[in-house]
Structures are given as structure tokens and as C-alpha cells.
């Protein structure tokens, strides 16, 4: 099994339409999507997110998350905390690197997710460009949300119609990032066609 850890935004972008959202094996490599309690906390801390994603706390989603949540041993937690602190120190040491090209410096929660990716190990799915830069510095595997969608398509978990629906929803919500937009006409060119001239 290879754990695929979704960050908060990825979960919120995909979980409503790709059911079940977590805990199911897919693909030849045996990927399993999962989330951490940090996602739960981040949404509950933010009135904006709770308002924008009212389905998040519906029983169907909340029960599924609790049932499939990854439990960490005390030993793992200690290693995670240590790795998180190294990652965060590296961000602060060179903060300017993380403030250009649409990036933001990864915060402590972001570093916690990447630390999980390193310790467990797991593939971390995020569209945060600062996290991608940090992960590449430290050799941690990360995917963009659209890359996960592509893997799910290869594994026949989602079809072209659902991918169109997801893109439509992201566009309507003003949540279509530049990277997702670019992927529409590259990775998903068969569905959306090539970029218009």
C-alpha cells in the first residue's frame, strides 16, 4: 500500500465528488487516499472554510474521515515533530525563496503534512507551490491535485464526465489555480482539447 495524503485544499476540492473520498485502494500500485486530523482542525478553525464547504461536517463525510483517519504512534509523533521542525527552520532560513512565483512560505501545518510524507512514507497531495519547493529541497514526493485526479482516471475511479464536472465546479467557485488551468490542456487534453490559440 502507498498512502496518498491529501492536504486541506485538495480534500475540499475533490472529496465531495469522488466518493468514497478516503480509505479505498486504487491503481496498480495500491494507492490509498488519506487525510490527517490537521485537516479537520484547519477547517473547524476557519469560519470561511466552514461556510464555503457546508458538506464537510455532514455525517457521510465526517464519519468516513474519522473511520479512515491515520492514527500515529507516540514514536511516530516524535519523529514527525522533529522532521517538521527541520522543515520549518529551513523555510524561515530562506523565507525569500518562498515568496515569489505565486508561492507562500509553508506554515507549521504544511510542514507537518510533509513530515508525515517523509516519516510514514506517503505521497503528499497539495497545490501549494511553496510546499512543492520545500518538498523538492528535501526529496519528499508530492503531487498536485490534478496529478491525483489523473491517477484516479488511469485507475478508472473517475471518468471524463466527472473530471469535467470537477473542473466546472472549481471554475464556478473561483478556485481554479493556474496549475490546474494549465493541466486542463496538457494532462487532460483528451478531455478538454489542446489550448486554444
Amino acid at each position, binding site marked *: 500500500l502507498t498512502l496518498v495524503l491529501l492536504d486541506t485544499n485538495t480534500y475540499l476540492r475533490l472529496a465531495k465528488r469522488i466518493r468514497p473520498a478516503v480509505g479505498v485502494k486504487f491503481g496498480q500500485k495500491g494507492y490509498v487516499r488519506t487525510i490527517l486530523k490537521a485537516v479537520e482542525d484547519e477547517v473547524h478553525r476557519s469560519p470561511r472554510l466552514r461556510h464555503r464547504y457546508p458538506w464537510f461536517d455532514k455525517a457521510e463525510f465526517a464519519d468516513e474521515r474519522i473511520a479512515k483517519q491515520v492514527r500515529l504512534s507516540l514514536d511516530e509523533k516524535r519523529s514527525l515533530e*522533529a522532521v517538521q521542525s527541520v522543515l520549518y527552520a529551513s523555510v*524561515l532560513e530562506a523565507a525569500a525563496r518562498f515568496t*515569489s512565483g505565486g508561492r*507562500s512560505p509553508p506554515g507549521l501545518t504544511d510542514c507537518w503534512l510533509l513530515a508525515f510524507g517523509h516519516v510514514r512514507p506517503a505521497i503528499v497531495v497539495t497545490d501549494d507551490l511553496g510546499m512543492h519547493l520545500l518538498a523538492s529541497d*528535501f526529496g519528499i514526493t508530492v503531487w498536485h491535485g490534478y496529478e491525483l485526479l489523473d491517477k484516479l482516471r488511469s485507475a478508472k475511479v473517475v471518468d471524463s464526465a466527472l473530471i469535467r464536472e470537477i473542473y466546472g465546479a472549481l471554475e464556478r467557485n473561483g478556485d481554479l489555480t493556474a496549475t490546474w488551468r494549465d493541466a486542463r490542456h496538457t494532462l487532460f487534453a483528451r478531455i478538454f482539447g489542446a489550448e486554444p490559440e
Partner: protein
Amino acid sequence: MHKLIHSEKVKRALQERGWSQKVLAEQLDVSGQAVTLWLKGEGFPRPDKLLKLASLLQLNFADLVQAPTQGQPVVAFRRKAATKTTSAHIAQAMAMGALLKPLVPFLPSAPVLRTLIPGASTDYAFLQMATGQTRTRLGLGDRAPLFYEHLIGEFASNGAVIVPVLWGERLNHRNALHILLPQEQVTFIFLNLDTRLEDFKFWMAHELAHIYTPELAGKEEGEDFADAFADALLFPQALAQAAYAEARRARSEAGQIKVLQRFAGEHGISLFSVFCEVRRYAQAQALPPLMCRETAVHAVRTGQRGALVSEQLFSPLPPAPDKYIAATQNTFRSEFFAALQRMLKSQGTGAGYLRQMMDIPLQDAMALHAELLR
């Protein structure tokens, strides 16, 4: 100084696990010689190996790595009464300081000539002299009420950047946060606008004292001087003398407090500041103390609190991003948002930067980010 592996801590961690350096090298998939060099301070692990080292030995960054402290931000909190500053608060403020560094190139050049108070001391005569000269610089006589607007220009002309923030009144432990970047020679002062007006004036005067005494940054004596300077600046000797004389004529504790309250009201400052300055004046002149007790003053003060600065500046609350940015630029004459706007536009920085650097919720950061890029 380069980064080094903290060899003592690593050796201790190995001992606790019963591991040799050879075992560690195998676990990390590196040569034994590489580990030896790291522990001798003659090499440093690559990022992926450093991460593995932290994970295996469960050592956090501060224990694992000896990093140069030169150029690190110097932070100080102006705490609310009955709150505690934890190591987590300090770590967060240091992080904010590190994140402010990329903003510095977008600020206007800092002035080279600055006001300094050499040999700062809490001696009464010294304080009166220092605050008297400051009042003269501000164009104020020794009996005129001081408004916080009087102080704003002093910050900018001494290379300090004011960052007014709305951190809330109850759930937050800070009235103000002072972050000095020593290498960049810039000070950022986060002032919580969700603070009572009389306290806000005190904190601004307190911060000004820190700006005048950079050599005391981060030291306890610097805090003591700033507290004493703030009270003396807001309520100088001439006023303390008048308040003392009048209060002495009252025959009861309540009557004396009433006199002090009137002075506090006229000057828009805290009753406690008036009380402290009158007490210092009496001590300095070897006069008998007033009969009012500190506990009684606190009780009266707690029962009569003024409006929040944010309530005075904005209606309705919370303010729309454009109103908040305008107040920062116009009322506080701060270059903070103008510099941030230059940075966001030229670098394409994401909204998450604002969230962390200003310690504000993501939704506020996104709204400010959108407004600055409009």
C-alpha cells in the same frame, strides 16, 4: 559561521539508543566517514539526510543543528495583564520576524540619522530630562495632553514600521509585538488596535522608548526603562506636581482617586499611569505619599474602561480591507502596506505569506491580498 551538527546531542541520542556511528551511517545509507565528518563539524548532511537524521534520532532542529544566531530577529511582547508568554509565542514571533525579512527591500530607505538615548536609566531626574526633550521635539509643552498621533512621526523618522493589527481583545495575549531585524536595521511594531485607547497610548510611548534605546533590545532593563519612559512622557513632572498638590487636599482615599481620575480623563491616559507618576514624584521629592492604595486604583480603573482604538477608527467593525489599509497609511503614516503591495506585485507572493507574517486568519489574509493586487 556555518551550520553545524550538534555533535554532543547526536552522540547522546546514539548512546540512548545503543547505536554506534556505524549503525547510524547504515540507517542513513551514507558512509561512516560522512557521519564522522558531520560530528567533527567538517561537513553537513544533505537536506534529505538531515531529515532522516532528525526522524531517526527524534531530535528537533534546535537540538540537531547549531545555526548561527547572528542576524536573528529580536522580539519582545507587550503582554496583556494576567497572560503568559510561552515558548510557542516566542517561536511564532521569531518566525514572523524571519518572514518579514523579504519585505525589507520593498520599504523606503531607512533614515540614517536617528534619535538615541544613551545611558538610559530609570532614575527620576534622568527620565524627566529625556521625556522633556522628547516633548519639546514633538512641539508639546510640559502640561499639554499627548495624543498617540503625536508619536507616529517619531517612529517613521527612526526607521520603525508600524503595523496596526486587529488581533482581538480577549483571545489574544499581546498588546504589541516589537520585532527588530538587526542586520536590516529595521524595526516592525505590531500594534493591536483592539486595545483600550488609554493603554494604546501607553504602549506606543513604550515602543518609542525601545526605538530610542536599541542597545537595550531584548533585555529586561530595556523593558523597565520603556515602562518608566512611557509614564513620564504621558504625565510629566509638572502635571504630577499639580495632581499631587490637589490630591493632598482631598481628605479620603476615594477623594484622592477622584482627583487622579480627573487628570487621567483630561489627558486620555490610564488612571494607573497618573497614580504611578504622582507616586514617583512624591518619592523623588521626599514628600509624604498619598493615601490611595494601588489595589484601590486598580479596582476603579478596571470598572471604567474607555473605547477600543479599533472602535474609534472603524465603523462598522471589522473594517473592509480598503478602509483598514487606508487607516494604516493615513492615520499611522506607515509604509507597510505600500511596501507589501510592491512586493506582491513584483514577486507574485501568495496570500499565505500575509497570513503567517501578520498572524491573521486565512480569510483576512486573502481579502487583504486581493485588495493589494486590485
